[in-house]
């Protein structure tokens, strides 16, 4: 078997602290990328000097860490996680040429444990999107950075989207161009592409993983999380990056358990909540079927299913698009051409601001900045932002009530399998509804995982989502692991 096919567990087993073996893992991935990334288009940069050659340098750089438990493990990163000395762009024109002078806390943690940053993944611009199609690299002018001329493609069907916004992170894992990857999830940006690409994607509890060095979209919603080939890998990777960080006041000082200890093939007595609001008309029939079959798998393994209600589900998307855009409008204000990134020269200060932002941001970024600016404006704040915060509290309460009756909640991750490239680009509302099942976990700050649960009639992967109370990632891992051990879906690979 080729090394690029390996999981984290296999890879570490193979390397065992040997530098040459680490290099051969990395070489295997490089060959794989050279062969297929011109079709998938998952990556935007491969090393600080942007060349694929630079990847080898990364391995040797970290050779000093020999003896570290994760020595030689290559981790691909979504391009909104800051890497010192290595361009970080959020797939936006406005950050072209921006080289962070510091590493994100997750990068620091990975490197301390011996892992290294392998390459950086494409994404929707500033994580605004559910298809990876808003990336600035999809424009012809920017294509030189990617191996593919055009947007990232779903490895299962190159005419379809990867999902998003962590589309590159999901696609590189699904296409065996990475051992594992990190993405970020604000409203489903890890779980939805994981589901559409047939990999495991985890959004941790808000505050579980430090956001320091993650370029913010919606500060009260964002979390970094793993995209992996198996549930075990997800548990391993979360174990590395989780934990309190002095530099992030919103991270919580809760001990990090050994998540691999919760990889137990047993759901006997587990109470699985099935929210009736999630199984309404409009869900793709294949998705519905796959989820119903998954419920049956759990039943047959000794879990019980409980009918629960999350009454404010209907408001989630609206609440989310008010809070997330409000925060985004403020978070993105700093991209003004003064300090770093793209600047339009000429004219006075006002013109510099105006043209820098006009030319630097793509359509979707502008749409969200305008929306967010509007809901925070004098005279509208109470009606939109304040009201949305109140409804957010109701949604939080929905979950705490529901978890009195069940241990985990099971839902589809996405209402449909991967859609065609271009299909929803002219219809932002349809695009926004891609995240209808994933948004509530972000609003409530609770952890949620998407795992492969089956395939559509067209052979497209379908994901199932499990949600648990805050800091109960271990519960998610056990339930997800049990499903994985008793099904074969995760073993199937995209043919490329």
């Amino acid at each position: 078997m080729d090394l690029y096919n390996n999981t984290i567990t296999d890879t570490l087993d193979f390397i065992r602290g040997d530098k040459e073996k680490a290099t051969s893992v990395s070489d295997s991935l490089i060959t794989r990328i050279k062969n297929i990334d011109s079709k998938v288009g998952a990556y935007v940069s491969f090393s600080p000097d942007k060349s694929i050659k630079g990847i080898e340098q990364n391995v040797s750089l970290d050779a000093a860490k020999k003896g570290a438990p994760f020595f030689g493990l290559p981790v691909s990163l979504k391009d909104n996680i800051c890497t010192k000395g290595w361009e970080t762009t959020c797939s936006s024109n406005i950050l072209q040429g921006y080289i962070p002078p510091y590493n994100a806390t997750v990068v620091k943690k990975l490197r301390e444990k011996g892992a290294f940053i392998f390459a950086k993944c494409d994404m929707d611009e500033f994580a605004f999107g559910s298809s990876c199609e808003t990336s600035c690299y999809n424009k012809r002018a920017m294509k030189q950075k990617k191996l593919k001329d055009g947007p990232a493609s779903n490895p299962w069907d190159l005419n379809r989207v990867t999902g998003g916004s962590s589309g590159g992170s999901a696609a590189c894992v699904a296409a065996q161009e990475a051992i594992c990857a990190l993405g970020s999830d604000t409203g489903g940006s890890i779980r939805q592409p994981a589901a559409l690409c047939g990999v495991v994607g985890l959004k941790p509890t808000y505050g579980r993983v430090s956001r320091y060095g993650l370029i913010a979209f919606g500060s009260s919603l964002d979390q970094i999380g793993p995209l992996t080939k198996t549930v075990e890998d997800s548990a391993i990777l979360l174990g590395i990056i989780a934990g309190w960080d002095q530099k992030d006041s919103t991270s919580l000082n809760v001990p990090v358990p050994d998540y691999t200890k919760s990889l137990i093939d047993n759901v006997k007595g587990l109470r699985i909540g099935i929210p009736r609001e999630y199984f309404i008309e409009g869900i793709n029939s294949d998705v519905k079927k796959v989820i119903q079959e998954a419920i049956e798998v759990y039943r047959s393994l000794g879990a019980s299913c409980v009918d629960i209600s999350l009454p404010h589900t209907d408001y989630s998307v609206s609440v989310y698009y008010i809070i997330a855009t409000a925060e985004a409008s403020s978070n993105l204000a700093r991209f003004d051409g003064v300090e770093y990134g793209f600047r339009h020269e000429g004219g006075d200060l006002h013109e510099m601001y105006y043209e820098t932002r006009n030319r630097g941001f793509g359509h979707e970024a502008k749409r969200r900045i305008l929306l967010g600016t509007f809901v925070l404006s004098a005279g509208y704040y109470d009606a939109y932002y304040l009201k949305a915060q109140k409804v957010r509290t109701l949604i939080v309460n929905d979950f705490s009530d529901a978890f009195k009756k069940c241990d985990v909640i099971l839902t589809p991750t996405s209402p449909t399998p991967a859609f065609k490239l271009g299909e929803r680009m002219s219809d932002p509302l349809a695009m926004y509804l891609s995240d209808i099942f994933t948004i509530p976990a972000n609003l409530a700050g609770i952890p949620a995982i998407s795992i492969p649960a089956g395939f559509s009639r067209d052979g497209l992967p379908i994901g199932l989502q499990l949600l648990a109370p805050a800091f109960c990632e271990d519960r998610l891992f056990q339930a997800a692991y049990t499903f994985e051990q008793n099904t074969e879906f995760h073993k199937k690979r995209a043919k490329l």
Partner: protein
Amino acid sequence: MDYEAVIGLEVHVQLRTDSKIFCGCSTKFGDEPNSNTCPVCLGLPGALPVLNKKALDYAIKVGLALNCHIAERLKFDRKNYFYPDLPKAYQISQYDMPISYNGYILIEAEGVEKKIGITRAHLEEDAGKLLHEGIVDGSYVDYNRSGTPLLEIVSEPDIANPKEAHEYLTSLKSILEYLEVSDCNMEEGSLRCDANISVRPKGSKKLGTKTEIKNLNSFRAVARALEYEIERHTDEIEAGEKIIQETRLWNDAKGITISMRGKEEAHDYRYFPEPDLVPFTVSRETTSVIGSGLPELPRERKIRFMKDYQLSDYDAGILVQDKKMAQFFEDCVIGGVEAKQVANWIHSELLGTMNAQGISWQSLSLKPSDLAGLIKLIESGKISGKIAKEILPQMINAGKSAQKIVEEKGLAQVSDEGVLEGLVDSVIASNPRSVEDFKNGKKKSLGFLMGQIMKESKGKANPQLVNKILQEKLKNI
């Protein structure tokens, strides 16, 4: 018709913490541009703020000293606006839940005590600074100041005239200096003030339209600008014109205010809760520990000085204005000299010399024991008051004790009766006219003869003894 002004002041004070409010960078003033910066205070993407506890403690300290309520929940908000000195394009500030609110300070107005309400005092971060001087191809930005902790202290519109405004600022500054939370240096920008003013017919309940005055660089500028605005408002009202609600800039050189922006151009700051800083509870314990550690404040100290040292209201008032001066005074008194004497010496001679030479209490090398020593030399008759006044500047400049200067320069008072008699005799001999005048009842001549004797002795003769000897000798002529 008579008019009255309604004035409220907003004071921004830099808190003197070692590091910035949301990162570990130094707050030092005057360093190489952009040398005290990091991803947080540069607002780099992905960087996050972490509150400096010291800044919070200082804010609570000020709140308590201003008799404010201290909020039980600490919450920060984002104030959004674009300007090159603001790296995140929002300022982390406090909008609807200031750390302290509903307080007051007492000031002296027309000889009576007056309460000036404090609406709120909230924490926020300072911005960077634009550099224009000597730059031809645009402007540069220095972010060293970015993230310096600021406390914005907003008064109620309880101030009735420019004099009260000046008094309020002096009292506030004095309190802040006593708390040792700020340098309060207007030149370096560690204390800044904006003024809100409106004018209405005397006795009217309805407020007039207000204007805000910015660019006030000294307490004197505040008073002058207010005087100007009161006159401008009054003239406009008298002329039947409407006052426009606007922000105006004070031009100190010309002594006028100029319109900067109107109400329509006012920013919509789109305040919303800062999601990167989770609200937290300020424990009552923390507040009470800080409260019990508050130093004696100027007003309390003044009352104590009046009581303990029998000083006049005026004397005590001047002494407590500066914490170091008050301390200097007390240390002198502890050194065993009479309080009233010390107060007089500080007010007249010491302050006079310091002002003339531009010496601050901060930089004064004279020790309280030195001044006490000087006064003791007068009290014991070793030197005359006149000599003492001459010695003081030398003490300050040379850093020598009075005793030493007296010894070195031979300035000790002459009390040897034999020597003095000789002096008196020679002056009497060389001024027969005055002696005769005296004999003829012209008492004034005695003063002249005294003066001549003192002059002969270069001021060193003991005046009491000279007086005694002179009187006796004249009687016997």
